[in-house]
Structures are given as structure tokens and as C-alpha cells.
């Protein structure tokens, strides 16, 4: 098992994610500069949160053309491993067309940083396998552009294939359609989530639910 956490200009959750994988879970992990394209030696690639390229144009719009992101389709197609995008990483994956839909400005027009309740909609995936179906968990969000949008036919497909993994529970903080907080691609090899599991991976920072996300991911790979 070997993981990589990609570092873009403007990433700021890279080291937290690295710490969870390396220090809390003992996974051999590299911080991978965004110009790297040799991805085949990794079983898990995480695109972390932050503000790659200052969120210029749209969040993730410029990072999607970075060499490391351009190398992802082949990595995924060859089944080398799985990809997780957290927050800005999720935005990059939708911009790159590796996950359907788009993430746009929160309905409130505000940056929201707080802990939210989430419901596990599908627990038969690497990301969610350590939770019960419909379990309510807590994770922090921190984003200005987290409102998930997709055309009706895409939403229909997401539901039919059970690609919606986490939904906001109780309160929808950003106006996401269908309360969507996390999705995966059809094959279950690419995951995107707006909440930050790396910020709730120790009891000191909450319930520790985020650690279960990473533990689930690295168990399977």
C-alpha cells in the first residue's frame, strides 16, 4: 500500500492529509508535486483541499490542466488504484470531467466553515465501508464553492447507480442539489467529497469519523 497526496500551488490541506495517512494509519505516503506524472506506483492518490491557483476563473478550473491531473485518466483506466478528491480536490475532479456535475458558489454567497451532519447513503464503497447504512456522522466543511449541481439526467444516473455516498443531514449548508456532499464515479474508483475527513481524524478534533474514511480507503486497496 502506497499513497500520494498531491501538492498544487495553493493546496493547504496537503500536510494534514499526509499526517493522517502516514502518522495515524502508518501508510507509506508521499507528497507529490503537481508536475509529477508517474502515478502507477501508488494505490491511492488524494487531491487535497485548498485553493489551487487561487481559485482563479473557477475553483479547480486551472488545476485540472496540471500534469498530475492530466495523468489521472490513464491511471484510472488501467486500474492502478483509486483517487479521492477532498473539497478543492473534488472541484478539480469535476472540472476535469472525472466526476460528473459541477461545484459552484454557495447559495448564501458566504464561505462556510463548520461541522455538519452527514448521512451515509451507500456503505458498500471503499470510502464508506466502515460506516453503517444511513448512519449519521459529523465532519467539518470549509468552502465557498460547494454547491453541487448536475443536470437531471446525471442526478438520475447517480441515484440509479448508488453513486451518492454522503448527503447533508438536517441542514443543507450550501444549497447542493439533493443535499449531495460526496459522490463516486460509476466504477467506484474516483471519489469526491466536500467535507474534510482529515480535519476530524482524531478525538481531539471531534468524533474521529474522518479517520474511518481513510481507513476504509486504505483497507481495500
Amino acid at each position, binding site marked *: 500500500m502506497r499513497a500520494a497526496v498531491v501538492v498544487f500551488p495553493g493546496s493547504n490541506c496537503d500536510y494534514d492529509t499526509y499526517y493522517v495517512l502516514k502518522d495515524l494509519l502508518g501508510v507509506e505516503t508521499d507528497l507529490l508535486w503537481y508536475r509529477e506524472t508517474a502515478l502507477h506506483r501508488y494505490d491511492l492518490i488524494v487531491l487535497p483541499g485548498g485553493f489551487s491557483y487561487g481559485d482563479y476563473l*473557477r475553483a479547480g478550473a486551472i488545476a485540472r490542466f496540471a500534469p498530475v491531473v492530466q495523468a489521472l485518466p490513464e491511471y484510472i483506466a488501467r486500474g492502478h488504484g483509486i483517487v479521492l478528491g477532498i473539497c478543492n480536490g473534488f472541484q478539480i475532479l469535476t472540472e476535469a470531467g472525472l466526476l460528473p456535475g*459541477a461545484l459552484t458558489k454557495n*447559495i448564501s454567497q458566504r464561505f462556510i466553515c463548520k461541522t455538519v451532519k452527514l448521512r451515509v447513503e451507500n456503505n458498500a464503497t471503499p470510502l464508506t465501508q466502515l460506516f453503517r447504512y444511513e448512519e449519521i456522522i459529523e465532519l467539518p466543511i470549509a468552502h465557498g464553492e460547494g454547491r453541487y*449541481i448536475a443536470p437531471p439526467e446525471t442526478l438520475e444516473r447517480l441515484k440509479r447507480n448508488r453513486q451518492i455516498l454522503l448527503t447533508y443531514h438536517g441542514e443543507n449548508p450550501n444549497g447542493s442539489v439533493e443535499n449531495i456532499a460526496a459522490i463516486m464515479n460509476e466504477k467506484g474508483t474516483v471519489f469526491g467529497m466536500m467535507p474534510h475527513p482529515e480535519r476530524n481524524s482524531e478525538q481531539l478534533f471531534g468524533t474521529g469519523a474522518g479517520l474511518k474514511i481513510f481507513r476504509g480507503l486504505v483497507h481495500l486497496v
Partner: protein
Amino acid sequence: MKEFVVRVLIEPKPELFDPQGQAVERAMIELGLKNISGTRVGKFIKFKLKAVSVQQAREKVAEISQKFLANPVIERYSIELEEL
């Protein structure tokens, strides 16, 4: 080669709720501008481009708009070309 000034206008798709547009519209009304509606806030991108013809310039700009400047899931764009 001809040279063009290119203006790409990007706005949220009509079916998409635009909270920024709504906030700006409310503020305009509060500032005394009456009889307004349908405010949308988008982006304006301007650059110069050399191409052999208007048609070629338009094709190139459409391609980069579709691929990069606008996100077709949430935005639509229009292009203006002005020959220098």
C-alpha cells in the same frame, strides 16, 4: 494574419439560481434603481488573438471557451470579435 480583440462573456445558465445576481439586484433596488429584473453576475474575459479569418478566430475562441473559460455544466458563453 488578422488580429482580433476577443471578448468572452460568461454567465450562469438560465436555469441555475444565481445568488450573486440576486444580491446585486437587491442592492441596486435599494440604491434607487427601479424596474429592474433578471440580474445575472458572470465573467468578462478579453484578449487579443491572431488568426487568418474571422471564422478561424471564432472557432478557436469557441473551443477554448467550451474547454476552459466556461464550465458547460453551469455556465453559457457568448463571443464578440472585433478586428483591429
